[in-house]
């Protein structure tokens, strides 16, 4: 199949989960295992389509859209069903499929307490449609529809299957995002009307958008900025995130961290920057400042946390700050770093949320002060936490580094054609952002020291402490099984669900070119569009 010809691969890949949803609708909610199986199979089939997409993709032409479909959709407003995939969206599109599949798999053994896997998994599959759709859409209205499809399932996932404070958290999440979406839609409509109301197609708007007057561009950019910034989330629009993450069930947190947040940053890269280059030029320094505030502020927020999951949630604010810093440089390196950072953050923070979920499942608490000695009690889980913490703090050789370090490289050298007069500001920001890497080490290692090192706290020791620590001394899984009733090490299903994350973190960390090679040509095209637009 020639990827440049019209074909249905993307459409199938995106909407396949709906088939599962339809089947599940007709099956009684009592058939819990069956529902789980259907969801896993559907997500698996979707992933297979994703793998086929990867194989069909022409990597030598990564700068261009592939698998393009452009069919008439809502002709009244000139909106088409216009989809395609290039180096910017491919990693995220595929990541969403992998994550949904693995999360569905994880759910098999770890259904949140509220029960009803039927509804839960149906929502998850619908969520996947929205996520994948957002990454392939090449039309503003289509993008907006997918973008909003994501909202409801997540709202219900938090609101129904969440923690004690779920009502507040889910409502806050929903309202906040809605507020952003509203302004975003306004901006979309404005850009449409300001380019002569001809088309919502990205490609068209890349060319026509630059023609809009500078002030108008700045106004429209403002709308998009708020819409996307809420989703990212950027300081000061981030306060929904810690609540949503903390209250969401593990599955929700993982998907939220791995994919949902990326819709915001993806929106900046795909829509806001190239369509409104002069708006971007004016906003870039502001974004950079807010991004760096987010890095430091998020890290400080982490240091103040007493709850493991909330700490991880706050760390997202800091990490997404690096992503936004990269984007704000308007350079190839910066945007490459941002895209890499999105995937890396998805994998690493997703993994951290998985671990937090498993800790909660075993200890029924995430209070850092009550946890201790995980390396003795659940050595493998403790190792995984250490691994993920190291990845999260940006250790070279693991994926997280490639989001942070190139972003710093880029912010020291922002695009001088566009941001030449802001050089000093960016350089100061670089140094402050580098301080963020130190703080990241501080909060993550501090978390690790308190939860994993030392001896297990007596409250979680079913047996006599001495016998317990001796059996753990053998560092053997079998010992842990009979020793503790609740507190056991990583289960086989967890291994299956997590291994792809772990492998990806190492593989992309050791050989980042695997992803840079795909993204780079597309980003070069993108930056050309921006530079041409600023003229």
């Amino acid at each position, binding site marked *: 199949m020639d990827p440049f010809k019209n074909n249905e691969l993307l459409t199938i890949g995106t909407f396949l989960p709906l088939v599962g949803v339809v089947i599940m609708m007709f099956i009684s909610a009592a058939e819990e295992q069956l529902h789980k199986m259907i969801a896993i199979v559907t997500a698996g089939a979707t992933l297979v389509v994703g793998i086929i997409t990867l194989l069909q993709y022409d990597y030598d032409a990564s700068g261009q859209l592939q698998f393009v479909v452009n069919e008439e959709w*809502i002709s009244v*407003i000139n909106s088409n069903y216009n989809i395609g995939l290039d180096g910017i969206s491919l990693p995220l599109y595929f990541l969403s499929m992998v994550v949904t599949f693995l999360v569905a798999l994880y759910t098999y053994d770890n259904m949140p307490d509220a029960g009803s896997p039927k*509804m839960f998994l149906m929502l998850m599959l619908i969520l996947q449609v929205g996520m994948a759709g957002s990454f392939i859409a090449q039309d503003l209205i289509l993008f907006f529809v997918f973008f*909003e499809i994501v909202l*409801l399932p997540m709202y*219900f996932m938090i*609101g129904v299957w969440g923690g004690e404070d779920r009502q507040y958290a*889910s*409502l*806050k999440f*929903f*309202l906040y995002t809605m*507020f952003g979406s*509203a*302004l975003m*839609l*306004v901006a979309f*409509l*404005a850009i449409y*009307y*300001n380019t002569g109301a001809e088309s919502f197609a990205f490609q068209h708007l890349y060319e026509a958008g630059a023609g809009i007057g500078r002030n*108008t561009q700045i*106004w429209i950019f403002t*709308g998009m900025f708020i819409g996307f910034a809420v989703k990212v989330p950027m300081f000061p629009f981030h*306060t929904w995130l810690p609540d949503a993450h903390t209250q969401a069930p593990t599955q929700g947190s993982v998907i939220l961290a791995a994919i949902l947040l990326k819709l915001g940053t993806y929106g900046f890269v795909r829509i806001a920057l190239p369509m409104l280059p002069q708006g971007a030029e004016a906003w870039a320094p502001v974004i950079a400042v807010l991004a760096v505030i987010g890095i430091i*502020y998020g890290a*400080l927020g*982490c*240091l*103040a946390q007493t709850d493991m999951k909330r700490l991880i949630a706050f760390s997202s604010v800091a990490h997404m700050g690096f992503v936004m810093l990269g984007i704000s440089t308007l*350079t*190839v*390196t910066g945007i490459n*770093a941002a895209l890499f950072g999105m995937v890396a953050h998805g994998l690493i923070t997703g993994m951290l949320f998985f671990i937090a979920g498993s800790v909660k499942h075993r200890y029924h608490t995430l209070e850092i002060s009550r946890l201790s*000695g995980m390396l*003795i009690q659940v050595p493998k889980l403790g190792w995984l936490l250490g691994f993920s913490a190291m990845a999260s703090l940006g*250790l*070279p050789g693991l994926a997280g580094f490639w989001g942070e*370090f*190139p972003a*710093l*490289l880029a912010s*020291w050298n922002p695009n001088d054609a566009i941001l030449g007069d802001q050089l000093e500001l960016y350089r100061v920001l670089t140094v402050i952002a*580098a301080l963020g*890497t*130190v703080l990241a*080490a*501080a909060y993550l*290692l501090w978390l690790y*020291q308190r939860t994993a*090192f*030392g*001896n297990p706290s007596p409250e979680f020791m079913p047996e006599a402490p001495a016998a317990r*620590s001796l059996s753990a001394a053998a*560092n053997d899984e079998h010992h842990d099984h009979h020793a503790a009733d609740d507190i056991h090490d990583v289960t086989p299903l967890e291994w299956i669900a997590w291994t792809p994350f772990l492998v990806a973190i190492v593989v992309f960390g050791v*050989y*980042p*070119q695997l992803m*840079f090679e795909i993204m*780079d040509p597309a980003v070069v095209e993108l930056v050309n569009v921006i530079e041409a637009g600023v003229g």
Partner: protein
Amino acid sequence: MSQPSMLLAAEESGHAIGEASGWFLENAWLIPVIPAVAFFLILFFGKKLPRGGSEFGLAAMLGSLVIAAGATWQWISSTTSHYDEAGNYEVEPVIREIVWWQSGPYEFGLGQHIDGLAIMALLLVAFISTLVQLYSTEYVNGDRRYTHYFAALTLFSSGMLAMVLAPDMVQLILGWEIMGLCSFMLIGHWWEEQANSKAALKAFFTVRVGDMGLLVGTAMLLAIFGTLQISEINALAAAGEFDSQNMLMWTAVALFIACIGKSGQFPLHTWLPDAMAGPTPVSSLLHSSTMVVAGVFLVARIYPVFHVGLDINAAGQSVNLIAAIGGITLLVAAALAFVQNDIKKVLAYSTVSQLGYMMMGLGVGAWTGAVFHIFTHAFFKCCLFLAAGSISHTAAHHSFDMKKDMGGIWKKMPVTFGAWMVSTAALMGIPFTAGFFSKDEIIDSAKHFEYTWFYYAGIIGAFMTAAYMTRATYLTFFGKPRGAAAHYMGVEHDTHGEVHEHSAHPDEAEHADGHIPDHTVDAHDDHGHDDDHAHDGHATHGRPLPFAPFDSPWKITAPLIILAALAVGAGYLNAPALKIYWFEHQTESSIGLPIDHGDDHGGEETEEPHGDEEALVVSEVAAGANGPFASAAEGGDHSYEPSGPYAVPAPPVFTWANAAPGLILVALGILVSWFASLAVFARRKNPFSPFVGLTTRSRPIGALHSFLVNKLYLDHLYEKVIVRAVAHPIAKAAYWFNQNVIDGIVNTVGTVTRRLGGWVYRNIDQRVVDGAVNASGTAASESGHALQPVQSGKVNQYGALLFGAAGIGAILLIILNG
């Protein structure tokens, strides 16, 4: 995806330059890869193996050593066959890279950059790592995390090896940070003790603070030179091809901050003594050839950046940042070494002090001396640590406290004692040991290149080194046996005059689990160990008392003997006193700058090096180091005119007259310290007796003493002031701001909007919103009803609110911009 292609790059250059070649040189990248692979093998399969994975570690290090040795041999044959009559030993580095990551105009490589400096470091690291692995098989035998220990140790070596052959700054950072990770794992190896995990955290975190400089400095390098390839950076810096020397200076400063953190330079040296919490072989590896040397290595690796950026060797310069930090470090650390009771901490401060020498050497332009000091120091410092471990392992029952648990053991441990004495002599810089040749060149250079202050720092440091090592030697090996050592020696101790039961643990392997968790005496003197530990039944492993002379097992003594031999022998690779300049010739092309032999043609090599004394004994170094963009960089108010390419001065010619002051001070240091030790510790009457107890009698001296004991209060500043402030008030304030201000606004807006929502719904929604929007609204409403128990009706309202607001906004924008 395209198969990454290996490309062999040999750069063209103006003058005739030899090309090094050979299988080992071209495949030197395998040297770090082998232990990296072994790391994963140990991690995944180690526990199932009879020797717990240590076989992988040892085999991998041997494999690396073989390749490193092969590469060394091929490098030497290349240099020897390529040196011409002008004394030109330059051989092009063997650079091979694959594209590690690309980004727009940039491509960053992963691979190898093999030249004299890299070869030296590769051989050194592979060699020391092999010995340490061998030693460890005995020393940590029976440890509960034996496998993890070897995994981390192997990865550690891999990190250092990857760093030293890095062709690119990014790979250098990779190796640098992997070492940071492994030091965290190894220092915190016995993490059940909070003190150990704290030390691990401190090491990682302190180094990380310095790493800010590395990240920012690397970004600055990219901005200045447009590349991160080390050979290109060096060439461009040496040729003066940059826009602003001021910026280059700041780059050098930023990168040097990283070196301060990593190499334990003042004022970030405080993590290093705490790092002694790790097992002793780890300390010996960390503090001899890896980790702490990384900072010095970085300066040596991209020396042109520092040399040009900081105007090193510019005429009239008497101080610069690197020399100043190095000089302060060497004195401060040496002073701190006097007040330690823990033998490992003496050695740790000694390492800091010697690293100060290396930095100072680089700061005054003595590149060769500094690099050679890296080389020689590795052997004798590794030997000293391993000797300390041997004592603790065999004689002192895992104690490292010289005052409590050692003394008089020279008779029983002849091999350990001999190795210790030889290495101590080398550390002090006694003539004809390795340390003498390398350290003397640094001190001599400081004098000749007119860094007079640093010359004094150097010789005073030599005095102090001699003195504290004499003190440590006395406490450890001489005098009356105390504590565990007394038990080991079969001598009754004054205060614990009883012979303990000692048959409970018949073999070596048994006692090793004494490490964990309640016997973590390795920790340090402030935490974890006291006399009690030293006096349970383990001390002699069941041998009858008193027993015959007995040293540690061969796996411990063999590395000691080899290292002790090298603590002397390694010096003869570059012994200016004997007119041997072999090491210098092998490595000088790595400096990246031309060597100025003192004639008028700065940078050109028309003289035969060291051939002619007259030409070389130049007290004024030719002003070859002035840049085209001369600016007073560090503390210099000198003015000078640009004079062509940058160059480093050739090392001064050795004369015994120049070395004499230092040597006299060393002798004096030994004597003073010996008699002072006798007076203080053995209460012998001698001229120093009046000084005994001075710290309690004299207030100022007592204050100085406690100032030193408290490590200059730097830890207080870092931990009690800075870290606590950030971790508590500042973080709490930020969080309060988050919860009450930002979230307060959000919640208020939410409430207001909710009230507005009703109004909007009633008045705007029904009239404005068009068909498509209505359809979506209905869909939202449907799903809302489906889950009514959750949020009955609200979704409907919000959907309406959204589209209502969007509609208004759209209309406004169209009107405004239409």
